[in-house]
């Protein structure tokens, strides 16, 4: 069976969803479709059966620009390497174009064992990022600061707050800051301990959990100024809790390293594969790239 390799286009969405359904038995999340249509840069590569034109393989990509100090870096965040069973001998073709990209960093956050094996062989650098959970409860002082912030008309302080696909993009001009604090946060499928405790009690009393979809842990994926964040973390934690029902923050260890260890719990490690191509990575200790988790393993 011969195939043709080409770039993915917006008009391929329906066919890619079909491919997900065929390979995984389920279509991707709504967030995926929204992100797919919202991105105008490289969306990945696909394989078409050259006889009937059907898409039989896909290796997706979301492309982002991120500021790192004075530099603006381009990230090709690859995800979802899926190929129909009968066409698996062509699957490497989907990876090859990424090796040729020389103007950015190619990343992969969702490698299963097989994909990891391939990426390592192709000299993708493997990085383990330890994560910490920022402990709740909220302090009285942060609640007071939060109230003061509200009095100063918080709406004027929020330069940007939207939920583009999955998660939350925030750009805050807080009174104490001279620069805007930009962040990207995304929920992870875990509840903080305080929610688990409440749910345990409610299970015992009412035979059902009290808090189901809200107050999850959210992971910080991007921040433009780590130092600013650390300075404002206490008040920010309160803000996110009150405004967005964020039950706790998960921070990569290098962001949390300046924080008091008593406020942190070790959580888990993320494995990231990264290919720097022609861009030096020596100074990059945290990957400033937006991550798009589909919660489906690559196949």
């Amino acid at each position, binding site marked *: *069976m011969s195939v043709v390799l080409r770039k993915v286009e917006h008009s391929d969405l329906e066919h890619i969803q079909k491919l997900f359904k065929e390979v995984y038995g389920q279509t991707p999340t709504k967030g995926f479709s929204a992100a797919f249509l919202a991105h105008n840069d490289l969306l990945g590569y696909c394989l078409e059966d050259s006889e009937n034109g059907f898409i039989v393989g896909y290796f997706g990509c979301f492309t982002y620009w991120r500021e790192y100090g004075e530099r603006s870096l381009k990230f090709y965040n690859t995800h979802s390497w899926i190929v129909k069973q009968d066409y*698996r*001998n062509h*699957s490497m073709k989907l990876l090859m174009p990424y090796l040729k990209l020389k103007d950015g960093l190619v990343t992969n956050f969702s490698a299963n064992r097989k994909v990891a094996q391939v990426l390592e062989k192709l000299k993708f650098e493997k990085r383990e990022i330890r994560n910490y959970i920022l402990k709740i409860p909220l302090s009285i002082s942060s609640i007071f600061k939060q109230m003061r912030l509200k009095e100063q008309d918080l709406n004027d302080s929020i330069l940007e707050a939207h939920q583009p696909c999955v998660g939350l993009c925030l750009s805050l001009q807080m009174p104490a800051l001279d620069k805007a604090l930009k962040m990207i946060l995304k929920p992870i499928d875990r509840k903080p301990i305080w929610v688990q405790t409440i749910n345990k009690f409610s299970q015992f009393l009412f035979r059902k959990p009290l808090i189901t979809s809200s107050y999850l842990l959210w992971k910080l994926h991007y921040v433009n100024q780590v130092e600013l964040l650390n300075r404002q973390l206490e008040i920010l934690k309160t803000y996110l809790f009150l405004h967005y029902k964020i039950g706790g923050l998960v921070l990569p260890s290098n962001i949390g390293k300046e924080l008091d260890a008593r406020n942190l719990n070790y959580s888990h490690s993320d494995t990231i594969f990264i290919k720097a191509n022609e861009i030096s990575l020596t100074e990059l200790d945290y990957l400033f790239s937006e991550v798009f988790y589909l919660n489906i393993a690559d196949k």
Partner: protein
Amino acid sequence: MTKLEEKLTQIMSLVFEIPEDRIKEDSSPDDIENWDSIGAINLITAIEEEFDIEFDDEDLLEMLNFQLIKLKVKEKLNA
């Protein structure tokens, strides 16, 4: 068949679990079922170990069939 061809045939036969006589000059992922992504990586690793050479990722882009692999190995051995 040269020694190099013989060795490559043996390696491919072992990696892809197919008889040696199925491996032809133009054999590629199109006609060898187990030549998927993992198969390709296993093949490259086996060749590197056997000949004590190392491929760059750019090389991998060109190793699309038996003949091209043979040329690449020759090139590396002569380098």
